[in-house]
């Protein structure tokens, strides 16, 4: 199995964004995932979001753990540096990378096995620290790459392909992210690009720990009757609390909505989120209410999606650590090394 580079010849009529890039400039190598795998749709959504945001691809770093989901960074943003690390440990690698250079955009891509089982600890702590990143879990309820074992997000009572029932309680990543202090929390579905792309764009624009749980059916091992992560099940039970329009600062806001049904939120970087409310009483700024809502609707068998929580005034780890503006990887001797005179004074204090 070797890498297949996509031909870079552009169709002359391909639309370009403000940087002059076409959609193709945001793509990666040809995917080697199963045809129809939800993960490929998420890759496509990432490509579209980055294209539409006019991001220079090389200013994005994409990091992942291990799994089918974690393989996907090879299949998008071919001009970005990528890091396929070890199983469940993407968050620590991303945290370190972010500390070294605060100026890049960090996409962390993970799976439900990667983040809810082996990597639950790192997931939790990276969120707690408020690392400025977009943390995407491509959630299929199974271990795809190791061929279909239950993961920790599989619902209790759901069945695997051979009909065996899962008896362990499931972990709800979104509830966890809320509990751990994520300042942007959303859930979406790989089959709903219209919902997913704006959420990705808003998450990228967010300064702080943005967490996205994307239900992403595994067609090989978890798309059957009895699964709660199948295309059919999610389509039937998907309950969006809102629909999001993401507007960059450059675009004027068109007012074409009924009063009371839309909320406009401006983030730190000036980007504007226009939330069209579906659940009229849902408040995206109330962490505790969000957790309660998720518990209630989850118990009723609904898959709640949309932008679930947002703290538009969030801070990130660099803010907490009070680090300098200049990326660490650009600091030189003069900024880092105190020199021989200081050392002599240090010596003197030890005599």
């Amino acid at each position, binding site marked *: *199995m*070797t*890498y297949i*580079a996509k031909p870079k010849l552009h169709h002359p009529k391909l639309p370009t964004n403000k940087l002059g890039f076409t959609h193709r400039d945001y793509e990666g*190598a040809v995917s080697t995932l199963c045809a129809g795998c939800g993960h490929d749709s998420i890759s496509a959504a990432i490509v579209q979001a980055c294209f539409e945001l006019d991001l220079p*691809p*090389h*200013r994005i*770093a994409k*990091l992942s753990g291990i799994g089918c989901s974690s393989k996907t*960074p*090879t299949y998008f943003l*071919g*001009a*970005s*540096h*990528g*890091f*396929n*690390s*070890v199983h469940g*440990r993407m*968050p*620590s*690698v991303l*945290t*370190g*990378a*972010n*500390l*070294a*250079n605060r100026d*890049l955009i960090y996409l962390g891509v993970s799976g439900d096995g990667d983040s809810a089982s082996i990597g639950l*600890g*790192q997931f*939790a*702590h990276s969120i707690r620290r408020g690392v400025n990143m977009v943390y995407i879990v491509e959630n299929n309820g199974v271990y795809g790459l190791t061929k279909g074992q239950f993961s920790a997000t599989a619902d209790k009572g759901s069945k695997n392909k051979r009909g065996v029932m899962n008896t362990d309680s499931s972990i709800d990543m979104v509830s966890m992210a809320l509990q751990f202090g994520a300042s942007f929390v959303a859930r979406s579905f790989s089959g709903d690009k219209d919902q997913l792309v704006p959420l990705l764009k808003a998450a990228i624009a967010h300064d702080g720990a943005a967490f996205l749980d994307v239900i992403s059916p595994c067609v090989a091992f978890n798309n059957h009757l009895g699964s709660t992560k199948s295309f059919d099940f999610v389509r039937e039970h998907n309950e969006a609390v809102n629909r999001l329009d993401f507007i960059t600062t450059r675009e004027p806001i068109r007012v074409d909505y009924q009063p009371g049904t839309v909320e406009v939120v401006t983030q730190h970087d000036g980007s504007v989120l226009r939330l069209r409310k579906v659940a009229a009483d849902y408040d995206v700024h109330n962490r505790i209410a969000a957790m309660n809502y998720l518990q209630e609707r989850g118990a009723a068998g609904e898959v709640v999606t949309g932008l679930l929580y947002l703290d538009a005034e969030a801070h990130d780890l*660099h803010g907490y*650590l*009070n*680090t*300098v503006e200049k990326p*660490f*990887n650009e*600091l*030189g*001797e003069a*900024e*880092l*090394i*105190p*020199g*021989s005179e*200081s*050392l*002599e004074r*240090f*010596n003197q204090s*030890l*005599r």
Partner: protein
Amino acid sequence: MPKPIAAVNDFVVKFANVNGSGSASANQLFAKAILRMGVPVASRNIFPSNIQGLPTWFEVRISEAGHLGRRGGVDLMVAMNPQTWDQDVKSVEPGGYLFYDSTKPMPLARFRDDIQIIGMPLTEICNRQYTDARQRQLFKNIIYIGALSALLDMDMAAIETLIGEQFKGKDKLIQPNLQALHMGRDYALAHLSCPLGISVRRSDAVGDRIYLEGNSAAALGALYGGATVCAWYPITPSSSLAEAFARHCRRYRVDAATGRNRFAIIQAEDELASIGMVIGAAWNGARAFTATSGPGISLMQEFLGLAYFAEIPAVIFDVQRGGPSTGMPTRTQQADILSCAYASHGDTKHVLLFPEDPRECFEMGALAFDLADRLQTPIFVMLDLDIGMNEWLCEPLRWDEARRMDRGKVMTAADLEAGKEFGRYLDVDGDGIPYRTYPGTHPARGAFFTRGTTKNRHARYSEEGADYVDNMQRLLKKFDTAKTLVPKPVARPAKQPTGHGVLYFGSTTPAMHEALDALEAQGIHLDGLRLRGFPFGQEVLDFVASHEQVFVVEQNRDAQLRTLLLSEAGFDAAKLTPVLHYDGTPITERFISHAIAERLRALNVTPLRKTI
């Protein structure tokens, strides 16, 4: 009754205390006062794995000759802990001295008749003077230091100055401490026969040397080495390294204009996360390190393999200690050699550095970052508890102003723009070291995907066997390059030609050097070679080849360095004789001399008597 030991500036004092009683700073005061008198000391803490209530010892070796290793044996025991009384009394050399609190009478059977007994009613004196319980306890320590100053004929001015320095800013405390000090001294002068047969005399044998802990020195080395990211998880005996880094950073790395930090220190959730952060930061072009001990090294194994295969710089300070769990772990060992040298799954080998003292902790602490960037691989700085957590007398730290960071082979935006060929795992220079780029460097060139082993020279995904083998061979070549870059061993030739040699490293060094002198005095001559790094260079091979018998002195049970020598250099096992000390206390001169002399006797080697 043996004659009382008589010695000036050459004896061992051991304090037996209860942990948490405030004795540590008083004992440190004692050691520092002797240094201020110009007499070298080597001091070592032996402490339990708890915060309060268990026995703790502080050993001070006073040696005008400058022997800084442990000698073995105790000449004056300051027995302040009833719990350990019997073993403390037993450890005194015949003719030695026992100083104790005589407030409560002790049955005669619990003394020895071959040592000098010096009783002083410390508790009684304290209770008379102080009403507050905490004061009684704290000042008791200062009072016995006062008494010792009289018994050992020490310079009061030196102690008084130190007390002044210690409480600078808390000036209220100076007078009461001086008062307690004098109370002890006056009592001893009036009631005890002063001085003892052992005493301290002012000298000038300390020179400009400094007295500091290896952990603090290593942390400063990291700072001078340009480290900006430190991720760590608390574990004795390495925690004080990360804490020292934080202290040094607050002093030297805060931007004066903005008050913002040119460093980031993360107390991670565990050692897996610590090393993951280090790898992420280094991948992205910052200099990053972690500090840990054996159990942490165990947890980091998977990531260390990734760093080796993906060729990412990382610096790991391993402050070694005894095995798992708690207890022995607060004792010293050199027992992580193999778990670091061969850390992780798959075919891996790593670069190790072995500092001999805090000065070298500083130097190697800084050097490690240059090596990590140059070789694009993890570098382990192998301290141990003895060096890391004890203050050692060592040469002052020095920094060459002209020195620049060696960031290794990094392609810049200009290089890429100029059209230089970039392949992440291409060996363009023939030294096995490829070029890398930092993420975000160039809009169209130089981006690559980092993964473990499954790749070709251009970092593209490949499961081809040939690509794998090609890469693994290049990694071996890189390891050969490392042999030329790690610090060279230091020879200590015998005074006359000999077929016997000894290899040693790290904190063993001062005891080893003293043992070499002692053996020489017995007519046993050995060439010494102090190893400073792994992989072993040509000098090590030549040394072993040019001797019939080589001793390998280590502080672990399994002769780990010897195993490494056998497996990496293919030496004849019979030629390398292990000398192993691993009870958790630092190795002593007496242990080494005895072990080597015994082995040689068993090998029927007749010492060449010195012709007088």
